[in-house]
């Protein structure tokens, strides 16, 4: 795709959010970073810009505005916060790809993801919910990222995004119909 896509990352100042932000800047993306503390998010922007001066990345205070501007939204918040964020952004994410990185067991990289996409899809019924779980510890290189969701076009978009971020995308199946396939086990 030639047209630059805008990705909003919610929870960008966290450890996952920070890592995702810098890896996505390898691609043709413009990033809008949000979090609960703007000053913390701004630190991530500054750090990223030290590495890539021309990076199109900026911190935004208003998550709703940032998601309104976005083509794709990434939720890098703790699992328990997903519902709160979903409630806030619901009206501006219609038909957009919303990726959740959250695991039911935070920090467990290969926690079972059964039903996670289905849950997110229920929270955001008119968005295209996709879950991505990556396991950097399998020893395979590049590391695999498991992708689950119901919308074929969204899975394609997310596969490209995940490759850009340096992972090998593995489409693990439809999110709501075959939940067991989304478990992050090879």
């Amino acid at each position: 795709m030639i047209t630059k896509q805008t990705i909003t990352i919610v929870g960008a100042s966290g450890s996952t959010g920070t890592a995702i932000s810098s890896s996505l800047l390898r691609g043709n993306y413009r990033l809008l970073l949000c979090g609960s503390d703007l000053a913390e998010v701004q630190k991530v922007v500054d750090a990223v810009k030290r590495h890539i001066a021309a990076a199109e990345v900026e911190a935004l205070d208003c998550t709703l505005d940032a998601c309104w501007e976005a083509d794709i939204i990434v939720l890098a918040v703790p699992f328990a916060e997903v519902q709160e964020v979903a409630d806030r952004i619901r009206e501006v994410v219609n038909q957009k790809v919303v990726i959740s990185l959250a695991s039911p067991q935070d920090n467990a990289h290969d926690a079972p993801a059964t039903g996670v996409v289905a849950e997110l899809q229920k929270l955001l019924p008119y968005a295209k919910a996709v879950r991505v779980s990556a396991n950097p510890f399998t020893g395979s290189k590049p590391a695999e990222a498991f992708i689950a969701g119901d919308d074929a076009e969204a899975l394609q978009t997310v596969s490209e995004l995940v490759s850009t971020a340096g992972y090998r995308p593995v489409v693990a199946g439809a999110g709501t119909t075959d939940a067991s396939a989304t478990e992050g086990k090879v």
Partner: protein
Amino acid sequence: MYELFFEEFNKKVPLTAEEQEQIKHYLTPKKLRRKQYLLQEGDVCKFIAFVEKGALRAYSVDENFTENIIQFALEGWTISDLYSFLTGEPAVYNIDALEDSELVLISKSAHEEMLQTIPKYETYTRLNITGAYLAMQRRITTIISSTAEERYQDFINLYPHIAQRVPQHMIASYIGLTPETLSRIRKKLSSGR
């Protein structure tokens, strides 16, 4: 977020509250900042954009890197590379924002699903495309059979709002004149009054 979209829709085809809600789920709200692209030449155009707020233009770029504007879109108008949208072939136009804008996008899949399931959406689409066709005919006639001065006056009469919001060189491009020619015409017209 969708106020103007539904206002215009209802003018063409009145909707019940229920139908409006049903259509709303298919719409993508999107903000675009000034100078940002909605579409770049070479990509497949994946949506039709309705302008809730702001202004956009569609243009091609020739071998001398001159921009040739094919269409403007202000509040209440629709803009797209329709050929690319309908065929899936790469777009020949660029579409970007002349002002910070709020759009309502209809993706290809949403468009097709609504055509299948919501008869009023099909009527709305037919009316939109008929309107665009008439505007296109009129535009071609003006370009092939009017003098430069007539073309400019026609534009001002037809689109007084655009003339106020868009720089002169873009208006020149839209009506197929060089900026120098347009500036001469404007001088002549203002001294003739």
